[in-house]
């Protein structure tokens, strides 16, 4: 087990408990590793940096949205690797590249290298948000972009507090789906 695994797993457990600072550090560290992983994978396929960044963000979103599927009794690396690889295969299928290009690999590969030379992804989240329903857009903007509390967001959007939580959750899922569709080029 690597030191990365121990450290990242501790961050994951804290973020599952609702610790936003740990969550941010966790996603930041993971995005560096995912970037190196995807750039390495796409390098031989004539893909550009923006495409790798699209994948990094898809995977980061997937990790965030599916964090409830992580079993704390298990190591974190294979879980992250399964998501990263699933998103890679899905991306290659969408872009109609050959699936045979993804050989069997060790889970550790996803944590092997770090790359913090971030490029920008090819989509604009503000533009994608316009395609959400009014309640979802208002809730995501208020809670996630403007950092309002659930109570304040409820007042602004004219929703109940549980309505805000549901709309944030659905809105982020919808955004993830829109991003996946957007990158289908």
């Amino acid at each position, binding site marked *: 087990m690597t030191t990365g695994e121990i450290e990242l797993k501790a961050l994951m457990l804290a973020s599952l408990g609702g610790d936003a600072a740990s969550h*941010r550090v966790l996603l930041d560290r993971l995005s560096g590793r995912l970037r190196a992983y995807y750039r390495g994978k796409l390098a031989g396929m004539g893909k550009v940096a923006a495409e790798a960044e699209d994948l990094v963000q898809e995977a980061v979103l997937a990790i965030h949205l599916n964090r409830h599927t992580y079993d704390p009794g298990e190591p974190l690396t294979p879980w992250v690797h399964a998501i990263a690889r699933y998103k890679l295969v899905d991306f290659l299928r969408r872009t109609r590249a050959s699936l045979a290009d993804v050989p069997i690999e060790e889970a550790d590969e996803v944590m092997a290298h770090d790359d913090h030379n971030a490029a920008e992804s090819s989509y604009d989240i503000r533009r994608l948000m316009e395609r959400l329903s009014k309640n979802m857009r208002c809730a995501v903007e208020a*809670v*996630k972009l403007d950092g309002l509390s659930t109570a304040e967001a409820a007042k602004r959007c004219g929703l109940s507090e549980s309505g805000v*939580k549901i709309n944030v959750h659905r809105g982020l899922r919808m955004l993830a789906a829109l991003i996946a569709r957007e990158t289908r080029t």
Partner: protein
Amino acid sequence: MKTDDLVALLSTNLEPVDRSPVVRALCIALAIGIVVALGIAFVGLGVRSDLTTTRALIFLAVKLAFAIGIVGLAMVYLTRLARPGGERKTSSFLVALPFLVVVLLAAVSLGSAPRAHWDRMIVGGEWLECLLSIPIIAIVPFAVSIWAVRKGAPTNLARAGAFAGLVAGGVSAIAYALHCTDDSLPFIAVWYGGTIVLCTLAGAALGPRLLRW
């Protein structure tokens, strides 16, 4: 968009996570599947009329043990398969065990019977009804299992679909056993085993389409 901005967005006002929605959804799905399947067996097909005889009870118990064994094992693996990377922890051998046991018992039973009885033992009286009923009764249990697996994030969609089909086929066999009057081990092996395998294959074929995320 910059990845840093996305990370910041996702971390803002983070909520603690509800830890077991997938397991809960799978249990609810199993309960709904069993209730619907039993409902069809009781209302649509009717329970076999000779349930008071010892022979009928023994064969009902054998059929139920076979089907419940399958459902139990398949549920354990489906719970794993609903999580990313869960496919690393599934053993096809263990799931095949109930099938192997029933095939072995069927072979022993055939071996100890005169050859002239074999046709009757294998084909039974209602093989066509069994062939149709188990997959049809399995539709609702399959649909709710897929709904539950979608609460998770399976990364091997064909295998997760196959196990959802296996659970559904097993649940359906539990219900159908209450109606079925064909009492022989070869019949159970061929028609129960065969239709449950059919449900599993259908699930494997549908999984990649139904479970994508």
